[in-house]
């Protein structure tokens, strides 16, 4: 018995003997990570241009596309409500766009159940560009050409950052399903 490979009875989520998943962690990680991502941009002082990707929305897309079926369709309502408190857009913008985005992704998934990551990236990029562009139109201020040009770096950063966020979601998913609990 001692000569056996010690990891023979474990998988990517830990030992399969005497250990089980933590149901609290398994349920809370996706929601908590999206809330945290909504909060992160507040810490940066961006006085000139919008420079940071809309991390909360990108994280929502990441969870939705990397792990379909984990977040319910109505998740945009509570999560968007939280994002609206910090984003600086007029109140209700995130509730509206996040709900619509989840419904649209649901429809896309109905058409294309089997997708590669590049397709997911395309979906997420379209959603992010739409989200930022609509935010420019519905910011409460007058949409000018100058502020549209100023969006370009943010758009580029958002699109480029999405694969990293998707990997982060995957890593968090492994953490979520680790067998922490001793039974």
């Amino acid at each position: 018995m001692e000569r056996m490979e010690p990891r023979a009875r474990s998988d990517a989520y830990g030992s399969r003997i005497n250990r089980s998943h933590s149901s609290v962690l398994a349920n809370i990680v996706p929601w908590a990570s999206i809330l945290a991502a909504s909060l992160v941009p507040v810490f940066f002082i961006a006085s000139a241009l919008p420079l940071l990707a809309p991390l909360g929305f990108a994280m929502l897309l990441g969870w939705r596309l990397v792990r379909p079926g984990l977040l319910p369709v109505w998740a945009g309502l509570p999560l968007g409500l939280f994002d609206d408190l910090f984003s600086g857009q007029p109140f209700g913008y995130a509730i509206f766009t996040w709900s619509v985005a989840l419904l649209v992704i649901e429809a896309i998934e109905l058409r294309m159940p089997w997708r590669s990551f590049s397709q997911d990236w395309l979906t997420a990029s379209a959603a992010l560009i739409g989200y930022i562009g609509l935010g420019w139109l519905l910011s409460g201020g007058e949409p000018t050409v100058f502020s549209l040009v100023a969006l370009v770096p943010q758009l580029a950063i958002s699109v480029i950052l999405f694969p990293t966020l998707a990997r982060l979601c995957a890593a968090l998913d492994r953490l979520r399903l680790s067998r922490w609990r001793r039974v």
Partner: protein
Amino acid sequence: MAPPGSRRSSYSRRAQYNLFTGYIVAGIGALLGMILLGLSFFQPTLFGGPRGAAQDAVSPATETAARVRTGGKSLWDSVSGYYRAGSKNAALKREMELARIRLVEADAVRTENARLKGLLGLLDDERPPVAVARLIGSTSTSTRRFAYVGAGSRDGVRVGMPVRSPRGVVGRILETGYSNARVLLLTDPESVLPVRRASDDTVAFAEGRGDSLLRIRLINLGINPLKVGDVFVTSGAGGYYSPGIAVAIVSELTDDGGVARIISDPAATDFVAVEPIFEPEAVVGAATPIEEELGVDEPAEVIATPEPTEAAD
């Protein structure tokens, strides 16, 4: 990854209802979002209360981050100060000598000013700031340029108060929470500030363009008198800002004025001061419709002058 088969909810009536309710709630969410969005367009300050409370809740974290950020910046400054320290030191010494001479001259001008004002019977009261605090955060993903300052209604900060750094104007308070307040930065597309050229009395409006620059719109049109490098300061019109605070430097000329860079970049400042409103009476006067002020029943023919520092959220 392929989706799990949860959409095909089998024969279980409960699972089918759950799925259906999910779609209904999502639809209601979108609708509710649209209604709230419409409401906040017409009443931008309607949700200021929840926003302020949410910022209050996270302000311990944002305060700490701001402290670390300003500390890190000064550390970097002291490290980079060693680069070519000798020649820099000599140049600074020369500059310092000149500055001392100018300072003495400025002292003379100040006493002269005080004497003249005394002759005219003008009061020159020193106005202490309401609060001095760090900039603790900003809306760095939104098209709008808001910042949060770590002083709120508990410190006596009220809506409309100007915010400045040692270098110049930063913005104006838009909403107050208990321990923080939201600042409309100069670069926001909705920010309009009455300014004048520092060298003479060419008056203009400095409007945020949303891309970190300000548009200087001259009030008296004609031959554009501006030159690249002109410094604009607050004119005091509108009653919010006290006159003579640095605002922007012209970097490019246009037909009706110019494009200017802000002098006080909020991202580079450690502490900002929230100052009392310069002339509260003027602010109230500007907010009162002229018909009401004149006591005329039918609206009179009024030439619409741009509201000085009008800012809808």
